[in-house]
């Protein structure tokens, strides 16, 4: 029952399809990325590829060998473009901030070309940074959007790379005029970040817009009313060379991108995070219900 269970549900079908050779997929190991990677895995297996998935803690890790020995990465448009930007132009380079995915992709086209990476179709599903407070705080202070925090002193619990970034601490301070007294580098949408805000150590926390667990924890997301977040549409990043040899990969993945919505993503994330289903399980049932298999 293992093969039809969690592990690689598509394995049975692959024998039927053509043998398209190996493909290596990498990505970050946080639940949503793992989930999308699992979808890629199953789809590509189904399409006759021999897949190899490597999930790592940080983007740096796989970017060191992508696109050399990594072929496909489930990416976020803003994430990849800004990463290439700071790698190319130094840590202090001005980041791209466009709120529209297509625009961002255009802005980063040179960087992508230079890196020999091709972005496939972007999905409507997007997962940007979002900032939250506790319900109690929101009610007592009358805060529902980020600009309500203007002039207030808060401690921010966020990803380790938050400080100074325009889509994070930098933008909050400069654009919104929030007085951020301290940044606790506790992780992006991590439990530590939630706990820190819930316990009152921090007032403001960083999470993802697709995290379905906030409400059950008594937390509310504040609206990004001044648009400091660059677009973070889901997008498959593929090695240009690989794509040339295997153009069919684009069709396979673009189908998925077309189907996915932010709501889907939120719900699926919840299944992983709350019910502790494995990303593979969740991916499989989603792909089936979406008719992608």
């Amino acid at each position, binding site marked *: 029952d293992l093969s039809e269970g969690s592990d690689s549900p598509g394995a049975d079908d692959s024998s039927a399809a053509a043998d398209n050779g190996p493909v290596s997929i990498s990505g970050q190991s946080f639940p949503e990325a793992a989930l999308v990677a699992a979808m890629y895995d199953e789809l590509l297996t189904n399409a006759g590829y021999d897949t190899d998935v490597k999930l790592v803690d940080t983007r740096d890790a796989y970017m060191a060998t992508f696109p050399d020995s990594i072929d496909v990465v489930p990416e976020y448009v803003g994430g990849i473009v800004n990463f290439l930007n700071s790698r190319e132009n130094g*840590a202090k380079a001005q980041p791209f901030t466009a709120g529209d995915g297509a625009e961002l992709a255009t802005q980063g086209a040179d960087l992508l070309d230079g890196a020999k990476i091709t972005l496939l179709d972007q999905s409507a599903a997007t997962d940007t940074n979002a900032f939250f407070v506790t319900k109690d705080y929101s009610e007592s202070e009358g805060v529902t959007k980020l600009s309500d925090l203007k002039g207030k002193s808060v401690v921010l619990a966020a990803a380790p790379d938050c400080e100074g970034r325009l889509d994070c601490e930098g933008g909050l301070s400069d654009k919104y005029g929030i007085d951020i007294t301290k940044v606790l580098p506790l992780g992006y949408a991590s439990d530590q970040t939630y706990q820190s805000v819930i316990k009152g150590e921090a007032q403001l926390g960083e999470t993802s817009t697709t995290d379905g667990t906030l409400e059950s924890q008594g937390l509310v997301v504040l609206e990004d009313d001044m648009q400091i977040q660059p677009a973070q549409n889901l997008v498959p990043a593929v090695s240009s060379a690989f794509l040339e040899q295997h153009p069919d990969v684009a069709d396979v993945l673009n189908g998925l991108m077309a189907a996915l919505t932010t709501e889907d993503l939120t719900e699926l994330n919840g299944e992983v995070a709350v019910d502790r289903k494995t990303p593979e399980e969740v991916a499989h049932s989603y792909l089936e219900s979406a008719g992608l298999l």
Partner: protein
Amino acid sequence: MTVVTDAWDYLTTASSWTGEDGMLHLMEQQLLLTITALLVAMLVGLPIALWLGHIGRGGLLAINISNIGRAVPTFALLALLVVADWPGTREFGPYGRAGLATIIALTLFALPPIITSANVAIREVSPAVRQAADGMGMTGGQKFWRVELPLAAALVMSGVRLALVQVWATATIAALVAGPGLGRVITDGFYRTNYGKGIAGAIVVAVVALVLEALAAFAQRRLDPVPREPSPKRHRGMSVTRPMVAEETDTVGH
């Protein structure tokens, strides 16, 4: 290799060192953390190990247990402690966020080398010397304080020295729970694609480790009550173990 020049730039920029998040302050924090954890480990581990060595029983068991304890990844242990209700992430005096949890994790990490070498050190005091002490009517306490401990001091210190360097190097993981120390520089660097900074942090950690090692080696030499010409037989290294074969073969035939 721009990372190398980046690292050099970072190291040679004054602002990297000064201020609340400067490396000097972080270094100070990490030293505090390291030394506290080491002291606690000594307070806990030495009495047990020395006593077991003195009575000559149970030492092997203590060594084995503490050694197996090493198999718990320090990071996992820290995570467990931070996630748990106690000690959790609470601020702890000058140690900052999750200070208590970090100290506990590092202390447990420091215990095995301290326990092992302290125990072996006492047990290795030559039986002849021990018997001479008994024979002249020393009490257990006198024998321990006047004979066993001074003779064991250098080897005990070598365990402490090993623990010191290892704890220092490992203390960087405090950064993973937003704790204090130079780990922050490293994670910052690597999480923000600023390899130069990350490497600079790693270099500073390594250099301080070597300095600590040298200081501890000096202390170890000072503690050795028997001044002797440097001989290859003596222990200089960060040794966990100690040759016992020679002693054993000597005792044959009595």
